[in-house]
């Protein structure tokens, strides 16, 4: 398959997507939709997906066969690279990653078109129409500014290599998950704009949109976790989150998405908070676009930045302005028409969710301000500054703490109007757990006692709160076991999902608190045979040897660590990739229970020894497990749809998923 096939397929997809948007939106705008046009429009989603897939596979084929006549392959691949990294190299560069972005975008549209038959026609047509406009914009971006299929004559004999930092399993798989998340938010965005145009955001709308928001949020959770895990073992600085602009760019849509999946529940259950939900759906996707803009425009520098080209920045900014500006204009004009029917009591599940939204959005704003402050200052005064971890640690952690405290209580509140005394009784186990663990930390911690006690108490509060939510609902210990099991089976996935995610968040917070408060670090200049001490371990540098990898040269250091008779060895590498003249490091990591002994080393430039950094990172395993459980909760909640509001369907026949066709 020659690259031209991929190029033509993409051009064809572009043309069909334009026709599709005209067919679907034209019908919706004139209010006179010809069924032949709209059914073409819906089927076109599948065709556009098929064509984009052909395009993507053709590029992947060029990478797999190391076809260096394609500029993109020449610049980003090399014949000496392991085969699997040749394939993952398809999206390890700007052009290919944009093609993957579009592929996922069209995939979601295709699934929406295939799955959405139960949706009201007009809503589906509008949503797919807006979706196709986004597709048109991004395929145009690829074709006009970042064409991955361009050829190079004469054909070079070999490529110039992939960025060696990207030659790693963690990095090969985390972008696709991030994109599934970023791009996934395009569907709630389209649903939100469609709702504004129709002037109707009801429980049916919320039920259709909720799984999309959930799946996007879940993939984004996984993507961020994988990225963080990669940074932890590959970048060698001993941390897992640096508040780097590109990390923030993925974290901001996650926060907005978190607020979204919570407020959508309120729309679904109580037919209220509609304006909020719509605005959050727009915000989540806007922040995803801003993230894309950040990485590719060169406006803010970062270790992650791809090839920087202002022309691309201008194009993405234009897309951003059209999508976000357009959506927010529609919001300003039409949001008035979304009138809630549900009333609000301050102490209720929905009341707690409103506060949750306010807190999470505040957290999102602090990240936004921290990320863009250097740019604002540069534009206003020309001064170059950078905002580092201290700002985020100071501001963000406080808001996060309050949010955790509320999350522990929120799920135990009933919808509509909660009975205050019953709620307090339900909160008792969590409160008890918080006090007990807090006191334990105060007694046994060797430093950071007060902060640690508050943090760990919050973790216990949230974890026990999540467990007791389920325990109360299945009447654990208050009804016969068989009855509890039956109730557990009958409990909706949304409830299980929420409890799991909250529990996962608690575990994650435990990891974050452990590593930030109780990490120990030693720096030493070591030669073979030297010993350094960290957290009770005496670590000996046993040997440093040189070795050759497939396309790199490496220095491998082996350490042996000893603590109370227990002895083990661990090794790390520093790799030099001559083709790019770049160095990467593989930290030496050995898990000790839930904690890590983590060693990274530098270059022996002085000839007197290798600079070695030794870390003992307590509880670090909780970070990954916590995030994994949180994501699992997302999947569980995602799996719950359709059968949920059976009660609601009976009560309110107008909310039936099948509506009378408009045609």
């Amino acid at each position, binding site marked *: 398959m020659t690259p031209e096939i991929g190029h033509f397929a993409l051009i064809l997809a572009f043309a069909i997507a334009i026709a599709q948007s005209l067919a679907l939106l034209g019908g919706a705008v004139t209010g006179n939709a010809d069924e032949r046009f709209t059914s073409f429009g819906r089927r076109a989603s599948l065709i556009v997906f098929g064509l984009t897939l052909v395009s993507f596979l053709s590029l992947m084929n060029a990478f797999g066969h190391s076809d260096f006549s394609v500029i993109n392959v020449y610049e980003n691949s090399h014949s000496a690279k392991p085969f699997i990294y040749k394939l993952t190299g398809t999206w390890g560069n700007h052009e290919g990653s944009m093609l993957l972005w579009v592929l996922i975008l069209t995939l979601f549209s295709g699934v929406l078109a295939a799955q959405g038959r139960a949706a009201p026609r007009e809503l589906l047509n509008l949503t797919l129409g807006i979706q196709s406009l986004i597709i048109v914009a991004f395929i145009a971006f690829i074709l006009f500014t970042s064409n991955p299929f361009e050829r190079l004559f004469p054909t070079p004999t070999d490529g110039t290599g992939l960025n060696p930092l990207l030659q790693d399993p963690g990095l090969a798989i985390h972008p696709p998950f991030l994109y599934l998340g970023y791009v996934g938010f395009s569907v709630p965005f389209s649903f939100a704009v469609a709702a504004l145009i129709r002037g109707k955001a009801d429980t049916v709308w919320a039920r259709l949109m909720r799984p999309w928001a959930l799946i996007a949020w879940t993939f984004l959770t996984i993507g961020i976790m994988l990225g963080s895990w990669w940074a932890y073992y590959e970048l060698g600085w001993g941390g897992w989150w640096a508040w780097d602009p590109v990390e923030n760019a993925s974290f901001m849509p996650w926060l907005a998405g978190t607020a979204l999946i919570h407020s959508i529940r309120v729309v679904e259950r109580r037919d209220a908070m509609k304006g909020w939900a719509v605005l959050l759906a*727009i915000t989540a996707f806007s922040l995803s676009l801003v993230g894309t803009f950040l990485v590719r*425009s*060169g406006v803010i520098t970062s270790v992650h930045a791809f090839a920087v080209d202002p022309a691309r920045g201008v194009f993405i*900014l234009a897309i951003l302005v059209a999508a976000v500006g357009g959506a927010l204009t529609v*919001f*300003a004009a039409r949001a008035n028409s979304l009138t809630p029917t549900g009333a609000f009591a301050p102490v209720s599940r929905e009341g707690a969710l409103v506060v949750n939204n306010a807190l999470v959005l505040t957290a999102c704003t602090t990240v936004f301000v921290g990320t863009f402050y250097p740019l*604002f200052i*540069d*534009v206003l005064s020309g001064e170059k500054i950078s905002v580092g971890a201290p700002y985020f640690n100071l501001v963000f952690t406080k808001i996060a703490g309050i949010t955790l405290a509320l999350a522990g209580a929120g799920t135990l509140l009933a919808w509509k109007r909660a009975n205050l005394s019953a709620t307090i009784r339900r909160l008792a186990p969590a409160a008890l757990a918080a006090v007990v663990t807090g006191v334990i930390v105060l007694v046994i911690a060797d430093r950071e006692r007060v902060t640690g006690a508050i943090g760990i108490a919050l973790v216990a509060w949230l974890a026990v709160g999540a467990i007791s939510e389920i325990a109360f609902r299945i009447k654990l210990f208050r009804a016969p076991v068989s009855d509890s099991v039956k109730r557990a089976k009958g409990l909706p996935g949304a409830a299980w999902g929420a409890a799991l995610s909250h529990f996962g968040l608690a575990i994650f917070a435990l990891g974050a608190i452990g590593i930030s408060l109780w990490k120990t670090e030693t720096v030493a200049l070591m030669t073979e045979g030297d010993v350094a001490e960290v957290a009770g371990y005496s670590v000996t540098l046993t040997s440093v040897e040189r070795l050759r990898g497939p396309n790199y040269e490496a220095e491998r250091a082996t350490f042996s660590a000893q603590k109370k008779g227990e002895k083990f060895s661990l090794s790390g590498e520093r790799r030099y990739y001559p083709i790019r003249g770049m160095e990467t490091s593989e930290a030496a990591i050995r898990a000790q229970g839930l904690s890590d002994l983590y060693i990274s080393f530098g270059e022996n430039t002085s000839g007197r020894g290798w600079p070695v950094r030794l870390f003992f990172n307590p509880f670090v395993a909780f970070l990954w497990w916590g995030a994994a459980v949180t994501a699992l909760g997302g999947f569980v909640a995602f799996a719950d749809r359709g059968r949920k509001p059976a009660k609601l369907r009976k009560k309110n026949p107008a909310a039936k998923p099948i509506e009378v066709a408009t045609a």
Partner: protein
Amino acid sequence: MKRLFLLVPLALFVVVGAFLANGLTRDPSNMPSQLIDRPLPEFDLSAIEGMEVGLSSDDIKGQVALLNVFASWCVSCHIEHPTLMALAARNEIPIYGLNWKEKPGDGIAWLNRLGNPYTLIGDDQNGRVAIDLGVTGAPETFVIDKQGRVRFRVAGPITDQYWTDVLAPMIEDLRRS
């Protein structure tokens, strides 16, 4: 009132968008160097393998000159090299080379193949001088004035265009002052 409230998100976005658009016109990688208007750090480097004379900071003083950080492993240096060759051929300005983190023998092989635009070259194999200069990557070029002060830094390759537009007028000024 409610109407105005609904305009808030759009207004916020317009402000952020304006900053983003303006940000596109700036280059964040062009960090101001701490060395600007300060004397060039003292160094005395030996010659690279295959050449006789090294480079010390005293060699550069007393004239307007360029100090160029290069290495054979650096892709952008290949892009920059023809421009430096042309400058040297026209005798525009003395160019001094700092061969950065090069394996012995690679530097001379590269210069033999592509030509040598440098008046003198110092071997900075362990990157010690590059650290003093605050080098962020290769290629990087420092403009040194007659008093031996660093007046300007270029991060990334010098192109013909960049030379005519930015460097040539600046060097003209420095020579006159």
